[in-house]
């Protein structure tokens, strides 16, 4: 009987076996796609969840890369599973019957061909019937082996995730760390914009071209940080990019200073206060050059001329503290020689030339100072943005413990806080704040003293930082006559602000008050 099946059903047998074999690999592929699609879907769902979580918790997420990686994981999983999985022929036949209403033809035929049952009179008819059915219905070819719905859903979800990532960039839920970061970014944008304004106005006064150019870029960055929806990563990237530009400009200015023969004596980069000191010394020297040239033009008496010659000699030797640059010394020496030879016009010409050279040098110093200050501001802003929303203030600006205690803050907080500005973090309450005047809030009244732990209090104050060290003084040279004191007119706001920053960087001032103090000095500088 079995032999008759083999002999008779050659083609029919092959038809059945081919159909089942085709169904086997297609089902394996379909199954592999299903599971790989689920893997991709799970991955991308997790990415989407992270994208949504960014509206609450600020963190950097390369969602485009992760979505692509999720799809790649799907393809890799497919290849792995397709290579590993095999669908048994009987199962494949049963699936064909089940899906294509085969009434168990294929499964019975496979069992008959496999010799599972003893052959009967209808065994060959079963194989023939299954072969006919397979030829008519082509069930195996109807099984799709291409990526199924889960994989397509994964692709669609990846697109949604990328779109959501773009749309939700900078979006944050109120009252969450992400919103704090967004607010910090906007605050720093305002701060950078104000810094740019101050830098631009100062650069105009100092005729510092590079600073003026960078002030525009700085202002645009500040506006972008306020206007655009940026996340922490985007904001820091922008700041870093501009920081690199400023650094390049600063190096160019420094290179120009070196080319002009004025080799910077201090290491690169200089601190702004060091640059300010150099510039102040240059201002003094320029004023001295101008003053001596003016007095030479007024036919001085022999005593006065001797005094002027001494001054020129001092200048040609570098001044009292060596603050006169090389070009200035050379011009002062030339002027002294001309004056000694009685050539007053030549001496004045040399002094004017020297003043012009020094003014060029001063402009370069102002450029460098402004750019260095901008870099410092950018670094500070980047630091604040990087720490924003984490609940921890920057370490450099961490308030001393005493300032956080009631009574550690200065009065007047409320009035200052109402002004516009970024100081949204409230300073600690003052000693006289409260419902009862001078006694603090009712709930803040002192109770029993808290028992102290035995131990030594660490000395956190650093000695020797303030009021100690070498004090440098210099005489202000002037006409010495009543009504003749002259000074170069100009706005002192930038200098005042710089000085304020300098002192605040030295002193232990709580960060909450730093901006308030700065605004106070800006307010003072404004009317002038």
């Amino acid at each position, binding site marked *: 009987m079995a032999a008759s099946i083999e002999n008779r059903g050659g083609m029919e047998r092959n038809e059945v076996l081919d159909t089942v074999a085709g169904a086997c690999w297609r089902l394996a592929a379909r199954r592999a796609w299903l599971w790989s699609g689920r893997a991709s879907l799970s991955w991308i769902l997790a990415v989407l969840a992270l994208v949504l979580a960014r509206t609450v918790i600020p963190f950097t997420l390369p969602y485009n890369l992760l979505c692509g990686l999720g799809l790649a994981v799907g393809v890799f999983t497919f290849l792995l599973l397709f290579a590993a999985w095999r669908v048994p022929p009987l199962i494949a036949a049963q699936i064909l019957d089940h899906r294509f209403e085969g*009434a168990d033809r294929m499964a*019975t035929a496979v069992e008959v061909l496999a010799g599972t049952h003893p052959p009967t009179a209808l065994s060959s008819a079963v194989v023939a019937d299954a072969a006919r059915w397979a030829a008519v219905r082509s069930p195996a070819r109807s099984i799709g082996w291409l990526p199924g719905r889960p994989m397509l859903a994964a692709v669609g979800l990846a697109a949604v995730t990328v779109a959501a990532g773009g749309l939700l960039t900078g979006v944050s839920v109120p009252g969450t760390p992400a919103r704090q970061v967004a607010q910090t970014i906007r605050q720093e944008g305002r701060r950078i914009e104000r810094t740019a304004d101050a830098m631009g106005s100062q650069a105009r006064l100092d005729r510092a071209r590079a600073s003026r150019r960078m002030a525009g870029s700085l202002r645009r960055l500040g506006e972008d940080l306020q206007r655009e929806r940026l996340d922490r990563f985007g904001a820091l990237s922008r700041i870093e990019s501009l920081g690199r530009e400023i650094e390049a400009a600063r190096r160019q200015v420094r290179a120009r200073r070196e080319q002009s023969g004025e080799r910077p004596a201090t290491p690169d980069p200089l601190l702004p206060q060091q640059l300010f000191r150099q510039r102040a010394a240059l201002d003094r020297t320029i004023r001295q050059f101008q003053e001596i040239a003016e007095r030479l033009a007024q036919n001085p008496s022999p005593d006065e001329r001797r005094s002027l010659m001494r001054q020129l000699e001092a200048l040609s030797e570098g001044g009292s503290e060596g603050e006169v640059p090389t070009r200035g010394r050379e011009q002062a020496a030339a002027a002294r020689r001309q004056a000694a030879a009685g050539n007053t016009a030549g001496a004045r010409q040399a002094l004017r030339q020297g003043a012009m050279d020094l003014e060029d040098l001063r402009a370069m110093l102002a450029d460098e100072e402004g750019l260095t200050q901008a870099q410092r501001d950018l670094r500070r802003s980047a630091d604040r943005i990087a720490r924003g929303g984490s609940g921890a203030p920057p370490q450099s600006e961490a308030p001393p413990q005493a300032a956080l205690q009631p009574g550690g803050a200065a009065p007047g907080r409320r009035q200052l806080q109402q002004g516009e500005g970024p100081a949204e973090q409230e300073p600690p309450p003052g000693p006289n704040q409260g419902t009862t005047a001078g006694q603090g809030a009712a709930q803040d009244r002192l109770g029993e003293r808290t028992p102290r732990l035995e131990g030594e209090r660490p000395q956190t104050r650093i000695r020797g930082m303030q009021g100690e060290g070498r004090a440098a003084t210099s005489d202000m040279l002037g006409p010495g006559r009543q009504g003749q004191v002259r000074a170069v007119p100009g706005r002192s706001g930038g200098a005042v602000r710089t000085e304020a920053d300098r002192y605040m960087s030295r002193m232990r001032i709580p960060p909450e008050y730093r901006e308030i103090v700065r605004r106070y000095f800006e307010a003072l500088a404004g009317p002038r």
Partner: protein
Amino acid sequence: MDAATFRTTFAAIRREIQRVIVGHETLVEHVLYAMFANGHVLLEGVPGLGKTLLVKTLAQCLDLRYSRIQFTPDMMPADIIGTNVVVQDADGRRYFQFQRGPIFSQIVLADEINRATPKTQSALLEAMQERSVTAPGGPYALEEPFLVLATQNPIEMEGTYPLPEAQIDRFMFKLKVESPTLRELLEIMDRTTSSVPPVPSVVATGSEIKAMQALAREVPAADHVRLLAARLVRATHAGDEAAGSLARRFVRYGSSPRGAQALLLTARVRALAEGRVNASTEDIQAVAPGALRHRLILNFEGEAEGVDPDEVIRSILAEVPPTPAASWSP
């Protein structure tokens, strides 16, 4: 006999019966399934639905010897099997001779079987199972094919004797005869009140029926098809771990192995009748109610709540997956 001939003959018999019987297509099919599976059928329905007419028509189509036994409470087993009677020959000698009863036919209509006493009902036991009758003078084999078609009235309880479990288990199918629809009723009126009532013609002989019965046993059934039949039977047992939810609650005794045999045999016949040469899970599911409903013995709770065994079988069919492929993913 081949599968095509089987199908043709089956269709012809069905067609001839349908010339007389209006509607009841499923009923007629199931009666034929049981007949070609060499089983007996218990028909249950109220009077006047055509149960007797169906059996008579079937006998007319098949050219088989037909007898009708009207069961009554005073009927004795000898009235069915036959009895020894005293016979006098030409020499005047008297001797006992076995007088065959109506059971010695090929199609026996046991009308209103539940009206006879259990003693009389049990007279059918051996005939139905062993196809033979033990009587004085030796066992007598019944001529094949042998088919008992019994009827019973479900609503008359007065003066009836419910069939014992052993008796009822010998029926391959218990079929319910439903009332005709309006359209069928109009057709019945037209056919039965005309001057020339339809008469079925003979389309098959006893030997052909036997050949068809033999062919039906040759139909292959895949492992999972046979497994489904076995699992359905196991699911009728309340104590089995694979029991259906309703069976677990309302069934006292489930189906015997005869139920599984009935499922597989009639599924094979159905496959041939449908033009296939293999039994399928659909065949098993189609014949399951008829093959199992009389084999479920409800418990007190089931009886009290009036649970229909068909509900239990439907729940079992819904809960037992027909094929492993149904749960294969994807």
